[in-house]
């Protein structure tokens, strides 16, 4: 075996690559020993050994999908890696980290989740665009800049939120000025009269952990469709039992339908 002095600081081969750990801040190595991992499409950058990638919906994977994948909307973005060898995962040179869940639950922005062990089960969060992992196992997530862990009660910027664990789902928080009549709405939309850009936050309360990234650059959101039209399902566009014009777009400062305000 020839040597290549000066060829970068570290040369990896299957013996020196870590098993289920980071190679550097931006690359994660997964070891497969006849086991399976779910991973998001296109996040594998290289592998040693023999590994098969099969889309969710591949007949043979039926049982696995039944037990650990419960999000039809995201099925086309995920594949199952199966075989033996070591595989490197990375995403747009974003920071990559692995997390262990022990009989827990964690909700994460769908674009940030790279891979997870089938011992966890994936479900769609009731909050649109987020996924929830439940169970025990390891998963890998990407973030723009290192992840910061915070404890509720806390209000966070929507773009910096990566996910949350063990605490109740967040609610929207609007600053007072945002809500006061027409001027508040105009100010929020145009920035005239001084909008700080931070009038809208997500608020977390209760016990748990909130994961933040140290930048406000988001992963590209992928259109994954919507949840089925059904009364009572948030984000489905289904009827909520209100007035027929309830879906009309509204200025952020507006308080609601006129009819409703006058009790008509």
């Amino acid at each position, binding site marked *: *075996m*020839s040597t*290549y*002095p*000066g*060829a*970068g600081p*570290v*040369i*990896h*081969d*299957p013996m020196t690559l870590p098993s289920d750990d980071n*190679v*550097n*801040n*931006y*690359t994660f190595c997964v070891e497969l020993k006849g086991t399976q991992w779910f991973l*998001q*499409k*296109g996040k*594998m*950058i*290289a*592998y*040693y050994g023999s*590994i*098969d*990638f*099969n*889309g*969710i*919906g*591949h007949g043979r994977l039926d049982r696995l999908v039944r037990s650990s994948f419960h999000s039809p909307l995201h099925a*086309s973005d995920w*594949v199952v890696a199966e075989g033996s060898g070591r595989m*490197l995962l*990375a*995403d*747009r*040179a974003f920071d*990559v980290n692995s997390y262990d869940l022990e009989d827990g639950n964690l909700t994460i922005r769908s674009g940030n989740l790279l891979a997870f062990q089938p011992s966890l089960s994936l479900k769609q969060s009731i909050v649109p665009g987020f996924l929830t992992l439940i169970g025990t196992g390891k998963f890998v997530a990407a973030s723009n800049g290192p992840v910061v862990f915070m404890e509720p009660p806390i209000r966070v910027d929507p773009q910096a939120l990566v996910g949350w664990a063990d605490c109740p789902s967040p609610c929207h928080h609007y600053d007072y000025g945002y809500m006061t009549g027409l001027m508040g709405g105009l100010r929020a939309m145009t920035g005239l009269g001084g909008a700080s850009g931070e009038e809208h936050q997500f608020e977390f309360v209760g016990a748990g952990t909130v994961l933040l990234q140290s930048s406000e650059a988001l992963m590209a959101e992928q259109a994954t469709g919507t949840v089925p039209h059904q009364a009572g399902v948030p984000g489905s566009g289904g009827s909520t039992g209100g007035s027929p014009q309830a879906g009309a777009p509204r200025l952020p400062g507006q308080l609601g339908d006129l009819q409703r305000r006058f009790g008509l």
Partner: protein
Amino acid sequence: MFRLQGSKVLAVEMTGDAVKAKNGSMVAYDGQMAFKKLSGGGEGIRGMVTRRITGEQMTVMEVKGHGTCWFADRASEINLVGLQGDKLYVESSNLLATDGGLRTGTSFTGLRGASQGNGLFTTTVEGHGQAAITSDGPAVVLRVSAQYPLTVDPGAYIAHQGDLRQSFQSGVTFRTLMGEGGGEAFQIRFEGDGLVYVQPSERNTIAGDV
């Protein structure tokens, strides 16, 4: 003498010798430097014509002088590669600088290039000396040996060196057409003995969305 200052700036100390670098990549220098654009990458008329035909164009300048010259390219990470008579294959867009004594050329890559959207040809660097290649995020250097062949996603591949054979694998099946593909429809398999450089990010490729 090539030296990294941080991970995104290349410092080259020169004592009258020359380096070839990507046009416009100089960010600072001290001492006396002369910059000269090399038409056709300093590969002569034949190389120039080849590059024009193969679409593997690169605009290269020659920097010569005494002192230190710093190079950088769009804040991408820089990796140093030492060459001892072997050949480095790298995409022309990822090549930042080479020692003046290294020969550059073009070579046919076959289907891998096509799947990357980079054309059918790649740049080669040959000789004794150092080269600097850029990557989106720090590159991971992976060794390929007889018992450990390596498979790489074309979008993450940036360079390889040594005695490697590459073959193109396509996993396109009827499932891919039905939108149930494995997501890794195109792969390059490296066999032999050498090093492969991959970046923790994927360029947009035809294969990227398959």
